[in-house]
């Protein structure tokens, strides 16, 4: 894991009447991610009644607040006051490592051929490269339980589809630029699909609902 210090100063800005965006960096980077993660878990542990929701992502944490209980100025100064404590490592829960069996290729891998053509690699190489890395969950969203995983090996980085598909199957494993992820639901999809998994990434009937949360690790296993 990268331990380099990131010179970026935490920046607070407003996002509409009831939103605060707390920015920790400008790039997809593990040290920025660690700050977001520490901040999110620390803030959440405070159980603030004035906060409705947190959306931590690659480089920021968006806070949705209740305007009847606080205001932008008050919540901002609370965040500034807590910055040092919030960013201190050690507040965060252990990350889990999930091994995800994937059927690469075949009829469900809608874009495998295209990815091979674009990268000049064989299907076997694409599979070997994709399943070689232990990925980090940078954020969960788009649809419930969808993990944005990074970072994809340069050799298999391809752009998103120009025209996203309106619906793909649940369990589809996709790649786009430096990211990879799994679609937990039949949903629209702009990433290129190279495989399929039967693992359930979201179960609305059972807490904690999502298989993964920010900071967890994923290793794909080719089956």
């Amino acid at each position: 894991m990268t331990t380099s210090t990131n010179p970026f100063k935490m920046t607070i800005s407003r996002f509409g009447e009831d939103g605060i965006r707390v920015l920790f960096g400008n790039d997809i980077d593990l040290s920025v991610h660690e700050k977001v993660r520490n901040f999110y878990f620390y803030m959440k542990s405070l159980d603030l009644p004035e906060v409705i929701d947190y959306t931590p992502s690659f480089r920021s944490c968006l806070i949705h607040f209740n305007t009847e209980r606080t205001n932008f100025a008050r919540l901002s100064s609370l965040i500034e006051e807590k910055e040092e404590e919030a960013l201190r490592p050690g507040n965060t829960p252990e990350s889990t490592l999930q091994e995800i069996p994937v059927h690469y290729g075949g009829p469900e891998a809608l874009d495998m051929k295209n990815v091979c053509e674009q990268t000049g690699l064989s299907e076997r190489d694409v599979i070997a490269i994709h399943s070689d890395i232990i990925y980090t969950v940078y954020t969960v969203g788009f649809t419930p339980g969808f993990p944005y995983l990074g970072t994809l090996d340069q050799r298999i980085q391809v752009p998103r589809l120009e025209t996203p598909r309106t619906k793909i199957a649940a369990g589809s494993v996709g790649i786009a630029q430096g990211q990879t992820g799994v679609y937990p639901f039949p949903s629209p999809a702009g990433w290129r699909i190279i495989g399929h998994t039967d693992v359930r990434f979201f179960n609305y009937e059972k807490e904690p609902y999502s298989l993964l949360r920010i900071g967890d690790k994923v290793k794909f296993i080719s089956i």
Partner: protein
Amino acid sequence: MIEILNKGMMTCVVDSGRYGYAAIGVPPSAALDKFAYNVLNCLLNQDENAPALEIIGAGFSIKFHQDMICAITGARVRASLDERSLSPWASFAAEAGSILTVHEVTEGFRYYLGFTGKLSLPRVIGCYATNLECSFGGYQGRSLKGGDQIEINDIYSVPLGIVPDKEIPEMKSPHFLRITDGPEHSFFTEKSQKTFADRESRTEYTVSVNSNRTGIRLTGDQLSFCDGVKESIISEGILPGTIQIPGDGLPIIMLYERTIGGYARIARVVRADLDRLAHLIPEDQVIFGRIEMDEAERLWEERRARLKSFL
């Protein structure tokens, strides 16, 4: 029990929204016209999170198998209970065996129907709202169709009420939506920012047929990105009313079904105008107006005061 005879264009169970789980990507899936939904619950003396039906389109019809009191708010509709015609934004008594039919939607798009009783539906992740895309919540995770039946328990009575006509919000095109700047508003050329939402030079947008409960797509003047600006951003959190501009330069207004977006967030629709988004119909005209945060806050206080007058 109530029985759906005709679902209209689309009917689903909604409530005030599923909050607290954005970090695992769970969106609110809330009632889109929160004001109409809140007034509905006031008319029925219901909990502020009670499940209600959100309906689009004429033809909707249900049969009551028990006596209860109901109310309709939201889009103005021409409706009848058996032979008796009903007033918009009012409660009415329905007897067992009677049939409610909506003949026409005369202004607005989505209307809300609620009941004085407890709908026998499970809470999923703490809520009754339907997540249609992921098939959970509401009624078996799906929109309602003819033949569906919902048990209603603990039926109570309330005095009938009606919202004075002048208190019913305007819902017809053109829709004037006020906005505040989003994190990426400076990604767009000054000229584009002006034609987007400046009083002097703004243009009208048209609601696209490709709109749905996730987002409202608009057609019209394409916004231009400044030179050297990346068209897609590193995916980040969004809130209801966020206006995203994808590479084609045409705005998408996000509703209550996404927690994260990957396109430049030029603006957010002010909270006081979010209810109006429920009533944007394909082909309607939309005009944006950029305002300052303090004015947006004042407008929200006004809306709160209006709602309080019903309590």
